[in-house]
């Protein structure tokens, strides 16, 4: 009735066909081999555009998500009664699977990169918001008292004392949000949002070399982003390094 089952069946037929003919007479990409080095070296350029699109999707979504979630967290830090409803609201956005979110937006924004970015941004909100709130809550009351005693205003306490001390939690949130978004952005292609999911969806599941390259780039990108954010966090929290050594 529907095409995936049909495609799978065609794939099975194709597999038999390939195995009957010896793999020597066929180019590697027509065989069942796990990885075709020749094809990979000749075609690696194909992945440049999807990779750049992927980076853009992630960076824009996480930056937007950070801007919104950070603002919400500061607001909720001042007005405590906002915390439960904001946690619930961001929780709902977090729970709705991105692939469903893309298409819930269909009547509003149609298909394309903007739709993908909105959905990915919505996904990051809860992680960043919650970590910022936790980070601010973990600042010892005595530290704030000391700051007050030194004559700092509430605004100064927030920016000069509380937020710097909350940096480890805030960065942990950013890290989790970024790494997850790199992984989830592979689904953006369903909404015509581009990214590394695009070559996967276009070539189907039978060409493993393509799956390994596209999936591998996404995986390494996630790890790399995670490490970069970890390094920045270390740079911005020198007192933690002092403690560790």
């Amino acid at each position, binding site marked *: 009735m529907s095409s995936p089952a049909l495609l799978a069946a065609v794939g099975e037929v194709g597999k038999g066909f390939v195995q009957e003919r010896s793999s020597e007479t066929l180019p590697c990409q027509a065989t069942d081999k796990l990885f075709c080095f020749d094809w990979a070296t000749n075609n690696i350029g194909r992945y440049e555009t999807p990779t750049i699109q992927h980076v853009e999707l992630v960076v824009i979504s996480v930056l937007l998500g950070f801007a919104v979630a950070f603002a919400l967290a500061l607001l909720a830090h001042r007005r405590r009664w906002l915390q439960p409803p904001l946690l619930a609201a961001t929780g709902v956005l977090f729970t709705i*699977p991105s692939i469903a979110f893309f298409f819930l937006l*269909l009547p509003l924004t149609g298909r394309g990169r903007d739709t993908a970015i909105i959905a990915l941004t919505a996904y990051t909100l809860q992680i960043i918001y919650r970590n910022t709130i936790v980070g601010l809550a973990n600042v010892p009351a005595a530290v704030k008292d000391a700051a007050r005693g030194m004559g700092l205003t509430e605004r100064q306490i927030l920016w000069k004392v509380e937020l710097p001390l909350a940096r480890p939690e805030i960065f942990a949130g950013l890290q989790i949000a970024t790494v997850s978004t790199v992984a989830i952005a592979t689904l953006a292609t369903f909404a015509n949002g581009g990214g590394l999911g695009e070559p996967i969806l276009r070539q189907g*599941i039978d060409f493993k070399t393509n799956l390994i390259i596209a999936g591998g780039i996404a995986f390494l990108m996630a790890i790399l982003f995670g490490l970069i954010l970890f390094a920045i966090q270390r740079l911005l929290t020198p007192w933690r390094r002092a403690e560790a050594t």
Partner: protein
Amino acid sequence: MTGALAHPVQASIEGAFEFIFTPQTSNVTGGKTVGGINQVIELAANQIELTILALALSLLVALPLGLYLGHRGTGELVATAVGNVGRAIPELALIAFMAALIGVGVLNLTIALAVLGIPPILANTFVGIHQVDRGTVDAARGMGMTGFEVLRKVEIPLAIPTLFAGIRGAAIAIVATATIAPIAGVLTLGDFIINRNVYGDDGVLAGAILVALLALVLEFSLAGLQRLLTARGLKLSTA
């Protein structure tokens, strides 16, 4: 399989609800009808089945291991590294690759989805058990509890929030990724979303609504279960 760019979007909320409840004639299936409550139930059942199987497999693997490592206090590096690396696995590539490597079908998809479910459960179980206050554990031992009793009566109840955060994270990842199961030969609600040329834009929107609802129901159920499993005394102290 990819939605064509040139087509204007023709989705409306009313159309989507009509698609959910009444079968429609599709222009590509040769007059066969698509949608309707029966097909919705069939696909939803597949997605629920797949989600439960994968979550059960994840729990079976990750929970005992996390409890053991957390209780012993060893393997912190492994547990947290698995948690961090697991988050970096690209869903679409994973499903496609596992389907290519071990084949399509419910069993293989269950394994692929469990790959997503195991890391958060393992990492959170470890952290939850490991961070239980040493003094509390010592007190339990002093009362004559065996190692297993300490785990069951003290460490697990105190670790419930962290433990459940992991299980809920795993469940959300699994039910979300089960949406793209049709690319690996198992028809879930995601089929409405992925195969726009069969179901039309109303079908796509209907699929998105149904998948979102399913995920929210799952999340609320697990939140409810967490509440049930939280010791009464702990609920009072946090209220």
